């Protein structure tokens, strides 16, 4: 960071505040505005994932694979094995869903490893001083929660598809105490645990990445001494990047397999 490139005198508070501000498009007083930077990077990285895997899938050979195909197949087999270990039903959706979640979240989290000032300052140079840019989509709760709520809707969809509406309602009302008098108690408990799933799923990813990004910013405030610190935290953060993506994928599989189970 350098004070001269921002207009007024730069304090740590204003530096971090600047970095936590999204580039928004639309009317910010209502719900109907979007964080254009989050969506841009998220969709861009999604396209990177799709194009990379599609280019390999189109030319996939069952003979001797190339190096790229080998790598892609390792990822695919890893996801496939994880799904098969956890989910014992038959579903054409869960495995591709898990693959998309895993690779996409890894890509989005990896944006955290780009030094925090590069892309925002590049944006400032191109578009002017008052432009904000947050480059890590998963540090935006909108992105993380959008994915976890999508998973949540899939859970509800499969619960109803497998068990029927009555089975789904019975699951909410007749557990853990199987007696009509306990229906309100059961309903409250089950609803809490049901809602907690997507919320915790999304907030876990968001919280971890947000905290990691915050530490990168604090390190960037140190000055010249930031380089070794930045390196150490980045190395550690690589683990967080992959671990959070894996946890998100794993929990998605677990939740969906729970939705498939008939009690």
């Amino acid at each position: 960071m350098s004070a001269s490139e921002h207009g007024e005198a730069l304090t740590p508070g204003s530096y971090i505040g600047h970095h936590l501000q999204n580039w928004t498009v639309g009317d910010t007083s209502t719900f109907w505005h979007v964080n254009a930077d989050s969506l841009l990077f998220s969709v861009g990285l999604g396209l990177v994932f799709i194009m990379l895997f599609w280019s390999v899938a189109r030319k996939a050979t069952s003979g001797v694979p190339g190096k790229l195909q080998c790598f892609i197949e390792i990822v695919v087999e890893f996801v496939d094995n994880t799904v098969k270990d956890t989910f014992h039903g038959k579903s054409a959706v869960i495995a591709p869903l898990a693959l998309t979640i895993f690779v996409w979240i890894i890509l989005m989290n990896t944006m955290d490893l780009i030094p925090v000032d590069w892309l925002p300052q590049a944006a400032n140079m191109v578009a002017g001083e008052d432009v904000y840019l947050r480059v890590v989509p998963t540090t935006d709760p909108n992105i993380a929660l959008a994915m976890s709520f999508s998973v949540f809707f899939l859970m509800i969809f499969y619960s109803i598809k497998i068990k029927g509406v009555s089975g789904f309602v019975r699951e909410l009302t007749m557990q853990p105490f199987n007696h009509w008098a306990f229906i309100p108690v059961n309903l409250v408990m089950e609803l809490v645990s049901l809602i907690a799933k997507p919320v915790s799923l999304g907030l876990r990813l968001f919280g971890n990445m947000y905290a990691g990004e915050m530490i990168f910013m604090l390190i960037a405030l140190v000055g010249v001494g930031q380089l070794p610190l930045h390196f150490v935290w980045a190395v550690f953060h690589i683990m967080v990047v992959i671990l959070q993506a894996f946890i998100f994928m794993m929990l998605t599989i677990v939740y969906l397999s729970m939705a498939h189970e008939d009690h």
Partner: protein
Amino acid sequence: MNLNATLLGQSIAFLVFVVFCMKYIWPPLMSAIEDRQAKIADGLASAERATKDLELAQSKATDQLKGAKADAAAIVDAANKRKAQIVDEAKTAAITERDKIIASGYAEVEAERNRAKEELRQKVAVLAIAGAEKILEHSIDQAAANDIVEKLVAEL
């Protein structure tokens, strides 16, 4: 936390990516992997079969080798026997031949001796007559004398 329409945008993007992955990425990759697994399994199975075949062929070859050796030994044995037999036969034939030759030799010698004896006897007879002629110095009955001499000669 500032929740806004980004939620919807991200959800739609998520849905699109998942559907695309489900339709165009997952199936070809999985089928490639499964095909290769099947190929490798086939290859391993056929390698195992080939190993078994090889073992079988080796044991068969060993058997055949043993058989051939036994045959060869039998042939050599028979040949040896035959050789001894031929040698024996030849020996016997040679001995017979030798005996025959010796016998004929003896017979010839005997005949020769008899002939020589006969000749000698004739000559002795002539000599005796001539001697007697000289001793007596005169002629006597030639015929009677010849008879006497013949008798003498026969007594020789």
